[in-house]
């Protein structure tokens, strides 16, 4: 008779949370402190049955997410702060994995805490930890894994295909609706599921795709971008897979009502007249109607209609359409509003014809927090995209110029940057630098000095991502 069946995915998040609690307590107390010992006892009681059932617990940080025995552990809101803390702590120590084997004792964990605290600031923190844990077989640490060039190219290919597939689908759907055809949400769900899968594994790359703004078919790209950004935000909030699909779907269809705006207004190169604004502002109403007519009422179409109706209403309901009787915005509407405003502000074919630089757009959103957008969601959003979001054109203190390529959750103002012009002012093929890198004196090697408008010079990540 084997060990009783344990739901690894469900148990793993409690184990990770408890592990984070130990390490948080250990920041302020010695490993012998009662608070730390109590946290250790609880961890042991959670972990050992899991080890018995699974053989071992291999806790690994892959991208922004923890995996336990190769199973990705979902974020959950109640554990969000602890998960973020642990991911940050792992990255600071270049720690990629911790394996718990046999039967883990409180003494083993006390050793781990000493190694964890002691390795901070070491040249090779993970190596130092491994040395300090050499006398125990029960806890083994490993370095952060880096993705190989070849693997990275393959992933980029998949990300690209998924993104354009979604745009192509979005275009097809709009055309079908315009011609009065009924559409199947089956395909839409599958498209969104692919995006969700990628966001779980390759968030930065897919977010990078949303940073390329210079397409002719703005409407379809915008829909997909809002969908991607909304799902990414939902993922940060620990939504279930089903919830993420729903969020992605409504993001994809949030602007359905724009179909009814006459093209001569929608594509007008100059500012709208009052009369034209009046028409444009009817698109949430048209969108809700269109969503409900998509295929009859079901939870997906209802949610789509609600979000289409509310996405310009603003957090304080001061937006449009105006309501006679006010009730609070749907939570997914608030998510989509954040994604929509960010993508719209950073794109060139919206009502405001001058696109903002990504960092400027975030700054505007911070100003709008509490009035136009949900203040808590803005915080989560900025943590997700970083202070300098992917695609931001930056000028470094080293006189190098580049594009933000990947965010760094550890330092949200120190992303990875693709340098396209070197310090001598020469345009090159591009090389990636990590702004969190420090020199031998512990000073950051590079810092963002200025940001520029990428649209003004038509510089974007396409050359490197596409």
């Amino acid at each position, binding site marked *: 008779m084997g060990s009783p069946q344990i739901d690894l995915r469900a148990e793993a998040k409690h184990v990770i949370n408890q592990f984070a609690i130990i390490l948080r307590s250990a920041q302020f107390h010695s490993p012998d402190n009662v608070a730390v010992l109590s946290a250790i006892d609880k961890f042991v009681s959670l972990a050992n049955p899991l080890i018995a059932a699974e053989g071992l617990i291999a806790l690994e940080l892959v991208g922004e997410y923890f995996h336990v025995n190769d199973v990705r552990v979902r974020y959950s809101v*109640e554990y969000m702060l602890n998960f973020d803390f642990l991911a940050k702590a792992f990255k600071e120590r270049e720690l990629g994995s911790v394996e718990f084997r046999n039967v883990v004792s409180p003494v083993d964990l006390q050793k781990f805490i000493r190694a964890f605290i002691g390795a901070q600031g070491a040249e090779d923190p993970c190596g130092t930890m491994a040395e300090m844990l050499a006398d125990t077989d029960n806890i083994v640490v490993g370095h952060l894994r880096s993705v190989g060039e070849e693997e990275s190219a393959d992933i980029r290919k998949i990300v690209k295909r998924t993104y354009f597939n979604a745009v192509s689908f979005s275009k097809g759907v709009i055309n079908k609706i315009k011609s009065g055809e009924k559409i199947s949400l089956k395909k839409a769900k599958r498209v969104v599921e692919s995006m969700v899968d990628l966001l779980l594994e390759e968030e930065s790359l897919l977010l990078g795709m949303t940073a390329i703004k210079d397409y002719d078919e703005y409407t379809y790209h915008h829909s997909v971008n809002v969908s991607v950004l909304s799902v990414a935000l939902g993922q940060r909030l620990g939504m279930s897979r089903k919830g993420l699909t729903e969020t992605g779907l409504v993001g994809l269809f949030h602007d359905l009502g724009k179909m009814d705006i006459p093209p001569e207004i929608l594509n007008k190169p100059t500012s709208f007249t009052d009369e034209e604004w009046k028409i444009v502002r009817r698109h949430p109403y048209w969108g809700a109607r269109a969503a409900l007519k998509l295929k009859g009422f079901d939870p997906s179409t209802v949610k789509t209609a609600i979000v289409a109706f509310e996405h310009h209403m603003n957090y304080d309901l001061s937006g449009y359409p105006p309501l006679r009787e006010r009730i609070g915005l749907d939570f997914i509407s608030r998510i989509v509003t954040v994604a929509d405003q960010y993508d719209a502000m950073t794109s060139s074919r919206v009502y405001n014809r001058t696109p903002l630089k990504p960092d400027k757009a975030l700054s505007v959103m911070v100003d709008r927090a509490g009035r136009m957008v949900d203040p808590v969601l803005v915080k989560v959003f900025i*943590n997700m995209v970083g202070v300098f979001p992917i695609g931001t054109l930056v000028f470094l203190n080293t006189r190098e110029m580049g594009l933000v390529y990947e965010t760094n959750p550890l330092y949200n103002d120190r992303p990875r940057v693709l340098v396209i012009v070197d310090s001598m002012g020469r*345009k090159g093929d591009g090389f990636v630098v990590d702004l969190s890198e420090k020199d031998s004196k512990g000073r950051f090697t590079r810092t963002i000095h200025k940001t520029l408008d990428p649209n003004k010079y038509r510089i974007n990540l396409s050359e490197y991502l596409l």
Partner: protein
Amino acid sequence: MGPDTNHLTKDIVQNLIKAKKTLRMYPENNPIYIKTVDAAFAIVQEYLDFHDELALKIRQFEVICDGEQVYHNPGKDDNFALFFFKDGVRDLTFRKGLVREELEDFLKIIAFDFDSVTDDDDVVTMMWERDFQHIGYIVDETYLMDDQDYEGSAVKEIREKSAGDDEVLRAYREAFDVEGVGSIPVIPLTDHDVETLKRDLDADVSESGRKLRHMLLEMFYMADTGDELQELVSLCKGAIDFSLQYVDVEGVCAFVRKADALLVGEGCPETIKPSLRAVVKYINSDRVIKLVGDLLDSGAEVEAEKFDQLFSLMDTGAIPSLIKILGELSSIHARKAIINSLIILGKRDLAAISKGLGDSRWYVVRNIIYVFRHIGDRRAVEYLVKKLRHDDIRVKKEIIKALGELGGGEVVQHLRGFIDSSDSGLRALAAKALAQSKSPAARKILVEKISSADFRNRDFAEKKEFFEALSHWRDPELVGLLDRILRRSSLFRRARVTESRACAAYALGMIGSKEALEVLRKFRNVNNALIREYVNIAIMRIDRGIPADRS
């Protein structure tokens, strides 16, 4: 793959096919269901005991394992391979560590009737949402693409637009003149923020119906044309249907009340009033009532008061539809709820209820009579008496009960005919009903019948019913009559006379008056055991003050 392994893999596929059918037919607690899942799990486990994984390649009409065909079916019906292939699944893998619960969930998914359910989920979506730990699949996504060349043309377009070296270098030169970055004041998430998010996430699940209804009503004020209003009415109807399908009876009530309030409230434009009225009226429709019936029949946990609230919002226009579904419902609970609704609405329109008396189904007619009984309006008599010749005796019985309860002199003449009916049950019910009418004519009829020569030949039980009916009149004259019956003696058919005497004692007990007691005491020691027993029980009844309605 060796011949044994190939054989085992073929068996596994056959087990999965069998389970796909069985799980569709039986509920989870059925032994056949349990046995099928156990068998499928055991055989997959047998394979995984010696292999790390079982990888099945899905082709259109075949399944391949380790390069060998393990399933083939060239037909399109019940094709295990095609079932996966059409949704894009190309590889299906069961890995070591698979647990029974996972396999059962997988089997439930493949057993799901995708063809008959209008759902947006396909097998891939369902597997994706279940997020199996030990069952993997690879999907060919090309079938999702509407335009396979879209990627190529979009990339080409964006590359053509991209900056040349000159633009990049211009940006570089101008960067020196640009202002330095300001900092974005990002405040980290607090515990309070996390709590707020958690609350919002939890609350959001149940909010959709309410928001939908609120949104639709707001949209009436935004509509520009009659066509738009018409369309909104249809959408509101859809929203009501949707709410009922998702067991939100309370939501429907709130929606209708809200629409009603808007109609009578200040500032409601005349242009939208007819549309709002149409929404309010919709709850009386066949469609809504059918959905309510389905909901009632489904056994969904909804408090009865919520249905009552909904029925109270309906108007008499709903009566025909309610009568229609009354005969279609299968559960007593559901029929009871509809009957209650008809009692509520019928008070406002007896004529509409009376249409149900013409229904071809006897049980519907009986239910309608029951409705009339509970409405308690004497005007119903005119409809009921028309059905006294109904073919079904159960209907007749219900009418007799109803007439008795509704009372009044006019019912006596109709009930009189049943006193001599060939059916003893009808005769007894008629007696009871006559008594309930409390009319002097009814008393007279009963006295005559009890005094008639043929009455003594009736069964003891029926006699008892008649005497009990008579006991409703408690006058001294009646006590005198019963005294005389109690004294009666006969040389012939003595047993029959004895039964009548016992029944008289019984009736005196029911009357319960002082005079009745005096009469009974005179007979407490009679020789006849049956009479003595009835007399003593009656005395005891009076002594203990047992009310007449507790026989």
